[in-house]
């Protein structure tokens, strides 16, 4: 078994996930990442798995592979998600189902199989990514926001179900960050969101790393079931 902490980050091909994978690999963690495509970065501390987090068999196989290679899994950052922004009156069932499948079921599957590995060492840190568009009830993002509300509830309950094994579960909602996910959102809509924040600026990758650093510290063993939003949103 390795002496170094092993971290799994989902959705590492681009955006926040990619930043966090490189950030934690540089910090010396053994980082395992996954996404539906291959990322364009490499690090000696990073191993990539090509998969869809909604694929139960693929998630199980990936986590088995991590457990066999390293003998442990300490930290999971559930960042993978998809978003289709549209008025609810124009949203097909297939689009809604796919979003729920990736954002909710995918998060649950990774938490479930990771927790099974974490339980044996009585230690784990799980951070599930949500969004401020749920608490601010942003028009045009009904299904995406609903899926992320589900992630918050899932996380709060997992905190109680897994706490006895030393596993903490928290969720984190960033303010809008200029990633591919929001590139299609009109500028006036983004401005509207930013103007409603206590800190009137877009989020950035460093904001995300800062929150994850806090949640995954060994000293944060009594911080669980929480949701932390950036920018003054509650």
């Amino acid at each position, binding site marked *: 078994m390795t002496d170094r902490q092993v971290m799994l980050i989902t959705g590492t091909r681009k955006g926040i996930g990619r930043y966090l994978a490189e950030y934690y690999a540089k910090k010396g963690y053994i980082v395992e990442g996954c996404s539906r495509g291959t990322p364009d970065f490499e690090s000696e501390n990073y191993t990539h798995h090509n998969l869809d987090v909604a694929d139960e068999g693929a998630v*199980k*196989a990936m986590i*088995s592979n991590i*457990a*066999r290679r390293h*003998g442990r899994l300490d930290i999971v950052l559930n960042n993978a998600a998809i978003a289709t922004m549209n008025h609810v009156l124009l949203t097909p069932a297939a689009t809604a189902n796919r979003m729920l499948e990736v954002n909710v079921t995918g998060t649950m599957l990774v938490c479930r199989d990771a927790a*099974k*590995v974490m*339980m*044996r060492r*009585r230690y784990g840190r799980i951070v599930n990514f949500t969004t401020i568009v749920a608490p601010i009830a942003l028009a045009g993002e009904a299904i995406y926001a609903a899926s992320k509300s589900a992630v918050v509830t899932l996380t709060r309950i997992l905190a109680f179900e897994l706490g*006895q094994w030393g596993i903490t579960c928290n969720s984190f909602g960033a303010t809008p960050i200029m990633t591919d996910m929001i590139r299609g959102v009109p500028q006036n809509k983004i401005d509207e969101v930013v103007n409603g924040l206590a800190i009137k600026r877009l989020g950035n990758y460093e904001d995300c790393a800062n929150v994850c650093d806090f949640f995954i510290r060994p000293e944060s063993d009594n911080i669980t079931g929480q949701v932390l939003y950036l920018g003054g949103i509650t």
Partner: protein
Amino acid sequence: MQSQMIDRDTGVQVVLASLREVLEQSGEDVPADLTEDTVLVGNGAVIDSLGVVSLIVEIEQRLEMDYEISVTLANDRAMSQRNSPFRTVGVLADYILTMIKEG
């Protein structure tokens, strides 16, 4: 189909070792006479319902790490069976072998 298989005696030993681990971790006294007939669910069970959850995960992880066998023991079918496949050590060992064969 799994590439690995275990015999029944090994299955029983895996269940017993996992059960001892779960009892020790929960601070319970480990009975000296754990056998194939030791009851895991219902009247006379040596563990509670949360202990069953821990036991299932411990067995899955032991099979994974020690035998490179990847199997999911809890599913809707197992949970809804009238005669629980988790009711004794021996019954659980038989169930594990069935699940491994079914891959």
